[in-house]
């Protein structure tokens, strides 16, 4: 698609020629994930997580569809349909459910690595702004889907999580409470809320899949980025996606799925909360209400606002929580540095790792009952989060002197490997007449 040397699809079998003239679907696949998509040859393993996210989306959709065949979306029946019918009586129901439950966590793990990869290597910069923004749309849809999915077993955390999260809306003056009641279909989470959450939980993954197609489409226009951030210059800089990256993605996917399998089979409840094995009880509030781990940083931001400064603290918290994600849409214009890769940006790199530590600490602060220490750490880290993106990043990108960039991707690849690659040169291409002249 993107480069003139991309291999064109040439159907050999008469049926494939016949099909290609009528419905060029194989041509699209060939150009998107086959030999027809030239990819920079220097990608490191952080570039494997996009494909992994696709694998986990597929796992979630497949296990989810089968689970939905056995699930009862009623307040009386939901808990037992999960914990009695599916976990005990459905053939391999326990496997489907644990795979789905932990699949959600692993989907978020790979997505977070994918997002931080993008933050470090400047994947949000021109010409890939839309790739980044569509990715954020996927992430928002994932959050909505995961939240509604967590409500479905109708345990204590399901119920009280739904109560707290829909309660965000009531922070807004005047319109907030009517919106909350409209969303829930009642004054508190009940049958109406459960049924619509189930319906939307089934719908949204397919919306995600559609946006994933747009995300990949938008990616294939400029082509994939790479760890140097240098543009692809010619054919030497790229390799066809198949077989090179299918092979790399393939073995890495098997290795990563091994980690997922170990958690799913040997510690399936490690990432969950015990309270969700207690049936929902609207009259008994749990000792602590915490969301699933992948929402902890945002929960910490929400809880960090404890002082009514002009506006009520709760409204500040809700605004900040939404802002913490929405600001990422502005990232391409907040970071004006022409250099994409963090590897060549010494100052940016330090702040990047500070951000990683900051988000991990925010997760810790949001993951437990509020103590004075948790609150203080959460407040400091939340403040840094906003300052990092909205103040520090624009200043850093204006002040910093980046390191010299390599001339091309292929030069950076062979840097230090020249001796090893010297003896053989099957398809050697000669350039660099200046250097040759100097050497002579």
């Amino acid at each position, binding site marked *: 698609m993107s480069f003139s040397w991309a291999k064109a699809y040439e159907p050999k079998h008469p049926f494939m020629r016949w099909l290609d003239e009528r419905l060029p679907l194989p041509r699209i696949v060939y150009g998107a994930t086959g030999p027809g998509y030239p990819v920079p040859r220097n990608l490191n393993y952080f570039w494997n997580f996009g494909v992994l996210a696709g694998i986990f989306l597929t796992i979630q959709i497949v296990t989810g569809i089968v689970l939905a065949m056995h699930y009862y979306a009623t307040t009386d029946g939901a808990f037992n349909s999960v*914990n*009695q019918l599916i*976990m*005990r009586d459905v053939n391999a129901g*326990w*496997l489907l459910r644990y795979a789905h439950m932990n699949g959600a966590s692993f989907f978020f793990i790979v997505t977070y690595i994918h997002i931080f990869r993008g933050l470090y290597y400047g994947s949000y910069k021109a010409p890939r702004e839309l790739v980044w923004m569509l990715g954020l749309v996927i992430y928002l849809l994932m959050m909505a889907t995961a939240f509604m999915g967590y409500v479905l077993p109708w345990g204590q955390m399901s119920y009280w999580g739904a109560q707290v999260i829909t309660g965000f809306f009531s922070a807004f003056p005047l319109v907030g409470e009517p919106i909350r009641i409209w969303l829930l279909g009642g004054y508190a989470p009940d049958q109406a809320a459960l049924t619509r959450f189930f319906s939307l939980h089934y719908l949204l993954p397919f919306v995600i899949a559609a946006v994933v197609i747009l995300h990949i489409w938008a990616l294939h226009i400029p082509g994939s980025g790479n760890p140097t951030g240098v543009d692809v210059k010619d054919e*030497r800089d790229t*390799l066809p996606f198949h077989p*090179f990256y299918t*092979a790399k993605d*393939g*073995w890495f996917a*098997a*290795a990563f799925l*091994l980690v997922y*399998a170990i958690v*799913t*089979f*040997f510690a*399936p409840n490690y990432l969950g909360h*015990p309270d969700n*094995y*207690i049936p929902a009880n609207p009259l008994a509030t749990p000792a602590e209400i915490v969301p699933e781990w992948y929402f902890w940083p945002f929960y910490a931001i929400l809880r*960090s*606002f404890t*002082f009514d400064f002009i506006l009520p603290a709760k409204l*500040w918290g809700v605004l*900040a929580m939404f*802002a913490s994600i929405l*600001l990422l849409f502005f990232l391409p*214009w*907040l970071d004006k540095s022409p250099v994409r890769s963090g590897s060549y940006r010494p100052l940016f790199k330090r702040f990047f790792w500070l951000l990683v530590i900051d988000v991990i600490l925010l997760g810790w602060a949001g993951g437990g009952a509020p103590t*004075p220490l948790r*609150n*203080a750490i959460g*407040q400091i880290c*939340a*403040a840094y989060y*906003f*300052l990092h*993106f*909205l*103040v520090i990043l*624009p200043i850093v990108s204006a002040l910093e002197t980046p390191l010299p960039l390599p001339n091309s991707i*292929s*030069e950076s690849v*062979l840097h230090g490997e*020249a*001796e090893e*690659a010297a003896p053989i*040169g099957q*398809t*050697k*291409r*000669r*350039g*660099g007449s200046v*250097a*040759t002249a*100097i050497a002579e």
Partner: protein
Amino acid sequence: MRFILGFIGAVFALVLTISLISGLSTYFSSPPAPLASEEFHLKPKPLHLASDGPFGKFDKQQLQRGFQVYSEVCSACHSMKLVSFRDLKGLGYNDAEIKKIASDWKVQAPSLNPDTGEPATRKPLPSDTFPPPYPNEIAARAANNNALPPDLSLITKAREGGAAYVYSLLTGFQNQPPELLKKFPEAKTPPNLHYNPYFANLNIAMPPPLTTNGQVTYADGTPATVDQMAKDVAAFLVWTAEPNLENRHAAGLAVSVFLLVAAILGYLAYQNIWHEAKRQVRVTGALDPENQAKSRRAKAKQGVAG
């Protein structure tokens, strides 16, 4: 636009700083009073069961003993609504034994009188779930000083600490330590509650259920000490919460070995494919190995070292 966004960021940071300062000043001006439930609460004692670990399997003798403790002691107050009699096959009972256990169960299953259609009861069948000791929550609370005995089907998954928590709680009943009363005179255990340091707020409504050695006479002759009974019932409750544990461990092993082999083969294939790619790449300019060789030769000719 960047100024507007920067301003928004600064405002959030400012409000957070105010929140931080107000929180810290409250903390230092009026530090939170220590709570007895924080200082005297204990983490569960370690408990090792045959089902622990990635290769764990149930000890069926122990599960049967635990089931005996449940049926003779716990089931007086605690329901186990998600488990069916037929599931007891997992404990090693045969069909005839299960049929007998079901029909001998001390609570009858609800049914309808086939002639009049009026509510009635009948002997439970293997396909029934364990009939609860109380017909509803109100009856359960009325019989237990307004406390509700929780259903035990999932209890080891529904409590932090799991089986170790159940074991510790059952063996943790004791008199309130005098130093607690000295430090927190108002934290004296109220009447009808029982001091137990493994319970979150230290005072539990459940009276000590396992009080004397030999309270249950084990069919397999194991001495029924309080500690043994507590361990056995904790092991049994791991099974009720996770009856497919052995299947899960076996399948997990097979899947992990499969993925490991797939990853190794995939890695070798990847090495094989990329070997070609590494040979194909040639760089231009000063890093071109041929140019480097030329450069070395030229330097050598001129007598320059290196």
